[in-house]
């Protein structure tokens, strides 16, 4: 972390062209980082395809996309939070709670349009996310502690509500389940389209909106961000609310995809989501990383899940593989940042 820290005032005072070229170098290395994940992903797909060509059949690609969509949406929300140097561990519980709530809603009103279910889920998610955000921003307490607490609370609300019962796919409206499984435009499943739209909108927001850029500033240096007039409290609150809404969306999509719901849905999902973001190059202490990187990370995790059986690797190796991948990803990040720091240093001395 400390290796990438530079001295902005000195740099800008000395040389006008230096910052732009170092900025270009930084951007170049960030692109390298995401391309790395993409390369690993393509390599994995290629090897698996060479082993068994049915891996890229229409049906298995569709299954892959359906599986990835939910994790991608969660990874996008988590990225917004992590970039501001926070974390939301309650998303797994939130997905479970909203998924169960969606099931309950549709059992009660089987004729409700899908969009109503989605909006209700996102609204409920935003409420719980805002609760996280309010506790973090107002009480000035680290998000890890607060969201570990709400992880337990949201999960127990889910359990108390479900009280041991299970919602069966057979009782759910057929139209809703069909939405969760069938292909939409261009043969791509609706769930994947939704995930794609979420990634596109979030990428655009993080790149081009002032408040999006401010999220990076908050994560790089919270004190400096506050001193330069960024409303950190409001931004962090907003990010938690958005992440909650996205977790709500993921919960509704989960209900549509699987149909069978109980109080254990989404247990442990939070660590998988954080893992996806870390693999995708989002720095765990904020300030750097992209939404599409995290989405690629999520896609990679899902692909590993479905590729290993095809490659005849024992399913028991899957989790060990993911763990090793996380370690490799953060090790690679370290290497890149050390390189970047060295390059910046040599450039500065060259200018002088």
């Amino acid at each position, binding site marked *: *972390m400390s290796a990438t820290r530079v001295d902005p005032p000195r740099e800008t005072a000395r040389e006008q062209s230096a910052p732009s070229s170092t900025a270009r170098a930084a951007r170049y290395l960030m692109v390298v980082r995401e391309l790395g994940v993409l390369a690993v992903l393509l390599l994995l797909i290629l090897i698996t395809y060479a082993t068994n060509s049915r891996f890229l059949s229409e049906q298995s690609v569709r299954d892959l996309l359906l599986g990835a969509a939910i994790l991608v949406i969660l990874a996008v929300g988590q990225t917004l939070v992590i970039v501001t140097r926070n*974390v939301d561990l309650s998303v797994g519980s939130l997905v479970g709670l909203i998924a169960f709530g969606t099931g309950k809603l549709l059992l009660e009103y089987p004729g409700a349009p899908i969009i109503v279910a989605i909006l209700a889920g996102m609204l409920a998610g935003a409420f719980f996310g805002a609760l996280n955000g309010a*506790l973090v921003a107002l*009480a*000035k*307490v*680290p998000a*890890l*502690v*607060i969201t*570990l*607490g*709400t*992880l*337990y*609370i949201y*999960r*127990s*609300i889910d*359990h*108390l509500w479900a*009280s041991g019962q299970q919602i069966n796919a057979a009782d759910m409206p057929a139209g809703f389940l069909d939405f969760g499984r069938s292909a939409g435009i261009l043969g791509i499943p609706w769930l994947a389209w939704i995930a794609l739209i979420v990634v596109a909108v979030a990428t655009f927001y993080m790149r081009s909106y002032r408040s999006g850029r401010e999220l990076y500033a908050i994560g790089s240096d919270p004190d400096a961000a*506050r001193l330069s007039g960024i*409303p*950190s*409290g409001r931004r962090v609150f907003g990010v938690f609310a958005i992440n909650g809404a996205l977790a709500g969306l993921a919960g509704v999509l989960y209900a549509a995809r699987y149909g069978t719901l109980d*109080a254990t849905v989404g*247990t*442990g999902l939070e*660590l998988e989501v*954080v*893992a996806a973001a*870390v693999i995708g190059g989002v720095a*765990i*202490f904020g300030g750097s990383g992209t939404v599409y990187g995290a989405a690629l990370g999520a896609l990679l995790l899902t692909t590993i899940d479905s590729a290993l059986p095809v490659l005849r690797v*024992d399913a*028991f*190796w*899957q*989790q*060990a*593989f*993911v*763990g*090793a991948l*996380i*370690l490799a990803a*953060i*090790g690679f990040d*370290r290497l890149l940042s050390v390189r970047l720091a060295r390059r910046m240093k040599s450039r500065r001395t060259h200018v002088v």
Partner: protein
Amino acid sequence: MSSDVAGRRDSTRLSMLRGVVGSWEFALLVILAVTLVGSELWVDNFANTITVTFLLLDVVPIALMATALTLVVITGEIDLSVASMLGLTSAVMGQLWFSGMTLEFAIVLCILLGAVLGAVNGLFVAGLGLPSLAVTIGTLALYRGLSYVVLGDRAVADFPFDWTDRAISTIGGTGVPVAVIPTVALAILFGITLHSTPIGRALFAMGNNEDTARFSGISVAWTKFWLFVASGVMSSLAGVFWTFRYASARADNGFGLELAVVAAVLLGGVSIFGGRGSLFGVLTAVVLLATLQRTLQLASVTDEVLNLVTGSLLILSVVVPNIVQMINDRIRRPGAPVPEAAP
């Protein structure tokens, strides 16, 4: 003059008293006492030795892991892989026993394994300077994955009776499990190290400001490395105990337990930023959570209420002191602008 000195001494004594009474550890003790008294009065079958035995058997593995984790968190790091190290130790012990090794030798190997697993964490965090949160999320998955690689979905359950019996045997008729003795001994060892040795002061210094600690001659990297090794060893001890207590070695032993351990440490008053906390507070929190769990089970309240209580306590433990601080600031300077209140 002398009365002035006496008065000052009185006031320091008073402020010391206020410090003890106002401390989080004291609040925890009060909550624990209230829970114990309330359970004995209103919950049937709470006040007997069997309850004590089962309560303390629940405490032992969490206390072992939380003891080492306390020191890790006080230096500003975290170890989320503790439950996975417990699981891997348990799986390896099952496999070793299955393949005919004597248990004495298997236990020694398992504790060594714990040291190695912790050293891997330490190498990534202290050696390469990577954030421990990310590293130990990685090893959480890696170690749990390896325990599935070792044991698959099999369970090894044919451990000899005298070993499994030893894990749950009690001291005389007191109901206190024998396993509590080494746990307490280790806790005292860690507690003395943390609170009354230069090493302990170095840990607090590292948690408060790592650069300052480094400049005052503390070898920050090595200290962190050995802390992660200690965390690995304590987790493997918990794994050995877990295996005998439930007479079963499975790859998913202790799955998800890391959050309970972290919750106990934070509830015990250790700052997640490092530099603040006490082992006594953490162990009180561990006993409190186990007591609440037993009470709720005996009162046939669903287990999930415990999660509600754990989560709420965790949030209250960090939010309430801040609110008290804010109110205090308002009262002390009525009308005066509250420092640091501006966002």
